[in-house]
């Protein structure tokens, strides 16, 4: 076995030193009747050429960015990934190391996390960000639980455009601790309506997804005000982190916790994971935050260094009193995102966000001008929006597919009331020609 160095000779030497006659005898504490008396029923082991060949065959059976043009977002965004990210994140000092429990030989990871925390604090407009959560959905659930701990209240009000999957995860997480979820209605312009009316003194938090599942930009400030008026926390969950480069920082609009998904920052779509949940909060709530935090300190010679800190919040110290059970998080994705943000920088990220906006505006203008297609919502959007088609969404998407385009998400399972509607996303990976082709296909104009 190529992954196991010891030879039979060496095993014999070791058994001798241990003082047992055979390998078997090391397992003698496992009662014989509990031991498996046959080999596992698995495919036989194989060399690299065979295994890779088999996996390549599986990989070829999926559409991907290399075979199709994607207008599909809905929480997972196709973006260009700068080449330096793979080069750096493939350094085995990063990817084959563990959680930085021993700071003297983990400063590479620790400094990266500290840089990430700083960047996310800046992007969200809050004080403290943690070292990642599993994904945007569980980050949102953890944010709700955090608000419940802070306020000792059970009720969670959510915006109309909370991603249905995030909503489901929230339900799953809140079931045990006894949380109650109430959702605002969607107004005619696509935004949430009447959040304020739902908030009461049982309410732990208001969660606004921004941009919403339907792509529209919500009135975060208003929601935050409603929450604060009743002593609840305002949580903003951001599905497309790139929007933070353009939209007013949620912290500046009153959000107490900002969480979401940062897959857009240099993390491959990878059929949905691993992605990168983030969570930021105000300093006063730091001791209720879930997840790891890295802090600055000095070494015995007075030199600056970084360590995991405030770990008394965490399960390995606090056990059943911990703020969360999270242990392994999404460290390597955090590294990728930190490199991404360093490469693009303040200007580049902003410029990219504006490009995404411009592409969406162009697409929307083409759609407006195309008979048979409609934009049901009037509220402004970032890089994603709903299109209503004349015939049926599956038929329209099938036409797009014929043109080599994954045209968006059929909204039927998520919002039947919208009629034949498709959620379309435009990132920098699509060109004007792609947009024209999509619009033609959705409209039924055969190209």
């Amino acid at each position, binding site marked *: 076995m190529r992954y196991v160095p010891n030879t039979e000779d060496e095993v014999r030497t070791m058994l001798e030193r241990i003082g047992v006659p055979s390998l078997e005898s090391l397992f003698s504490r496992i009662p014989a009747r509990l031991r498996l008396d046959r080999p596992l029923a698995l495919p036989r082991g194989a060399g690299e050429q065979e295994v890779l060949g088999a996996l390549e065959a599986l990989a070829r059976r999926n559409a991907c960015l290399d075979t199709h043009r994607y207008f599909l977002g809905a929480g997972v965004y196709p973006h260009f990934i700068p080449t330096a990210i793979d080069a750096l994140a493939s350094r085995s000092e990063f990817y084959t190391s563990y959680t930085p429990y021993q700071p003297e030989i983990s400063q590479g990871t620790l400094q990266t996390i500290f840089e990430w925390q700083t960047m996310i604090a800046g992007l969200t407009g809050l004080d403290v960000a943690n070292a990642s959560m599993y994904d945007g959905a569980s980050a949102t659930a953890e944010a709700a639980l955090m608000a419940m701990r802070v306020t000792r209240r059970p009720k969670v009000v959510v915006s109309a455009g909370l991603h249905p999957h995030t909503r489901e995860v929230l339900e799953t997480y809140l079931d045990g601790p006894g949380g109650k979820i109430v959702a605002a209605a969607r107004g005619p312009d696509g935004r949430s309506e009447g959040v304020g009316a739902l908030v009461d003194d049982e309410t732990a938090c208001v969660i606004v997804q921004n941009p919403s599942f339907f792509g529209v930009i919500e009135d975060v400030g208003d929601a935050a005000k409603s929450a604060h008026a009743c002593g609840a926390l305002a949580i903003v969950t951001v599905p497309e982190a790139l929007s933070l480069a353009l939209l007013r920082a949620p912290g500046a609009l009153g959000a107490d916790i900002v969480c979401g998904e940062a897959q857009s920052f240099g993390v491959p779509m990878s059929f949905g994971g691993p992605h990168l949940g983030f969570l930021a909060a105000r300093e006063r709530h730091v001791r209720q935050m879930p997840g790891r935090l890295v802090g600055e300190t000095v070494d015995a010679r007075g030199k600056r260094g970084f360590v995991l800190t405030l770990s008394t919040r965490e399960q390995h110290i606090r056990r*059943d009193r911990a703020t969360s059970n999270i242990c*392994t998080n999404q460290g390597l994705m955090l590294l990728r995102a930190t490199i991404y943000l360093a490469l693009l920088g303040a200007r580049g990220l902003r410029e990219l966000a504006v490009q995404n906006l411009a592409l969406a505006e162009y697409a929307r203008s083409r759609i407006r001008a195309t008979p048979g297609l409609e934009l049901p919502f009037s509220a402004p959007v970032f890089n994603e929006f709903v299109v209503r088609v004349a015939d049926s969404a599956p038929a329209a998407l099938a036409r797009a597919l014929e043109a080599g385009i994954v045209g968006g998400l059929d909204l039927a399972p998520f919002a039947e009331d919208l009629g034949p509607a498709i959620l379309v996303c435009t990132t920098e990976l699509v060109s004007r020609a792609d947009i024209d082709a999509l619009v033609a296909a959705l409209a039924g104009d055969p190209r």
Partner: protein
Amino acid sequence: MTDAPAPQDRDSTTAVHRVGNAARGVSYEEPLLFERSRPGRVGFELRELDVPAVDPAEVLGEAAIRSEVAGLPELSEVEVVRHFTRISTWNYAVDLGPYPLGSCTMKYNPKLNEVASRLPGFANAHPLQPEALSQGLLALIHELEQHLAEVSGMDRVSLQPAAGAQGELAGIMMIRAYHEQRGDRRSKVLIPDSAHGTNPASAALNGYDTVSVPSGPDGLLHPSAVAAAMSEDVAALMLTNPNTLGLFEEHIVEICEIVHAKGGLVYGDGANLNAILGIARPGDLGIDVMHFNLHKTFSTPHGGGGPGAGPVGVKHLLAPHLPVPVVRRQDESEGGGFTLDYEFPRSIGRLHGNFGNVGMLVRALAYIRSLGPAGLRRCAEMAVVNANYLLARLAEEYPPATRGHVMHECVLTDRRLEAHGVTTLDVAKRLIDHGYHPPTIYFPLIVPGALMIEPTESESLEGLDRLADALLDIAREAREEPERVRGAPHHTRLARLDETRAARRPILRWQPAGSE
């Protein structure tokens, strides 16, 4: 920051030049990204826009947009590359040498797995693209579920949880759903005192009260202790087998019977599955639900703290409660192929925005396909031989917390060093000078001064000998020159870090000098 050597450095150089597996070398300094930033630098250039440019203020309204992006630096590509290359050299890693962190199973991460996970058809596929366009990935998920079921002796597996702790959460949720569906509201979960912190945290996060069950003096969980704590208000017992002392829970069958007899279920923490691959199966021992840590047993890299993957396996009785969606192989009548099934009314629901950490699943499948049944079993055997060999070599200087042979890891103590004022922490730090990552320390909590060593099957006999030599050398040094051990590490770029100070006045982000 100035480049001149700090004065105290001049005097701090009593270190020898070479020790054990390592020598002194050059380490590169590197400030924070923000400190390297200069306005106007660019590290990336965007494509040219081929649609009309827009003014965001006009499109979105002045009030909706921010005037500037805070928190981000400005750097050229070369500076970014150097920054991360330089700071990467400050990390220890499995690819550099043994990483004997008990409970973490820091085995070798095969390069093949990395290549496989980056195949465009996996890495660049969207989770919401039509099923017909995702048959390869759905087949992969389905196949891995089958394999994990076979390895564990469980009936069904869901790959959705993103890490072990989320797998625990899923498991406990299913246990709750099971009881509730039977109209049986229970409030407690039993957890041995040797358990990992995620166990009680997962139970508590689910609204359960946790009850700690004491391990016996032999480090094992005893039926009597479980029986004493067991009642009809107990939803489940969570246990880890082999346990965190590296011992196989010999009474497992009896314990499961006790729990089952009172209507409870048994949760198995699969973090230590590596020790019994192909030798025994949790499902055959009486476990009802368990998680796997693919980033431990199945070689997916730990990534400096993740991502992992924590699939959860269940017996038939819990299958109706598995998270949705579930990948199902369609009958020929349905056209064959794989589909996503959401129709599980008694499911605990969704745990992840999508299907979990799919990139990790690809790696785990590559690993299982590479090893096959014989290879997996060989891993377990070698992990166990290696642990016992280290134990044999070290037991005298570092008295073990347990008696007799162990499974894949051993827990040693600093008992014999006490007299010299040297602790487990000091030994750990001194091992760094020898060129090793320290073992897990002070865990499990029930062992004072624990040094928990898990070599894994990736180490060779001579590699173990060098590691043992280093630890024995430190024990000798603790007697002869204890202050040298207490002052360790000496060779690293940074000396011992002040963790107390970090927690006392937390500095959790960089701020420009004078900004506060």
